[in-house]
């Protein structure tokens, strides 16, 4: 099964579980009703915020640990200008 299918299946399963408890079809055993009624509706929003925080962390970490390599930079800039010239001769507009 492809990863996308697996992810879709698992998230559908947990969404269904969440919805069932949200609409009071089931009750989560062993959890205090009052606290659950306050926390449960916030779970999707918490997931969204967690996803955003994780993304920000991930970007920040990449930036923080990025190693500069000046020769690769010069080589890359040269290759970019070569590629742009090549595309221009073939009639494609490049900034």
């Amino acid at each position, binding site marked *: 099964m492809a990863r996308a299918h697996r992810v879709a299946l698992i998230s559908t399963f947990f969404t269904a579980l969440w919805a069932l408890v949200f609409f009071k079809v089931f009750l989560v055993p062993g959890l205090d009703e009052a606290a659950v009624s306050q926390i449960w509706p916030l779970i999707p*929003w918490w997931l969204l915020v*967690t996803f955003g925080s994780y993304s920000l962390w991930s970007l*920040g970490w990449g*930036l923080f*640990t990025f190693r500069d390599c000046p020769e690769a*930079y010069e080589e890359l*800039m040269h290759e970019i200008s070569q590629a742009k010239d090549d595309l221009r001769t073939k009639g494609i507009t490049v900034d």
Partner: protein
Amino acid sequence: MVGLFVDPVPPILTVVQGAGDKLLGGTMLVTAAVVFTYYTTWAMLLPFFDSSSEIHNFFPPREWAVRLPAIILLVGVSAIGAFVFNTIIKEKRKKQRQARLRTA
């Protein structure tokens, strides 16, 4: 010959650029950690505290724990939509201008 050879960046500037990256990256890391911890406490842990407890003074009323992410989500999606829309309009105008130049 069309196309310029880009001047190489002097080594001093690359070191300074690295510092800027580290600073920005570090800021993002700290922000992400703070946002996650604050929001988790706000949304998930506060209901377990007595309503007379002092911890509630550090947080806005809990309706905002839903409204804030909802507003940010709306604004974010609108911004993305506006950017996509803008890009499409620009490309269309460019195509019209090129078509006009060709027929002129």
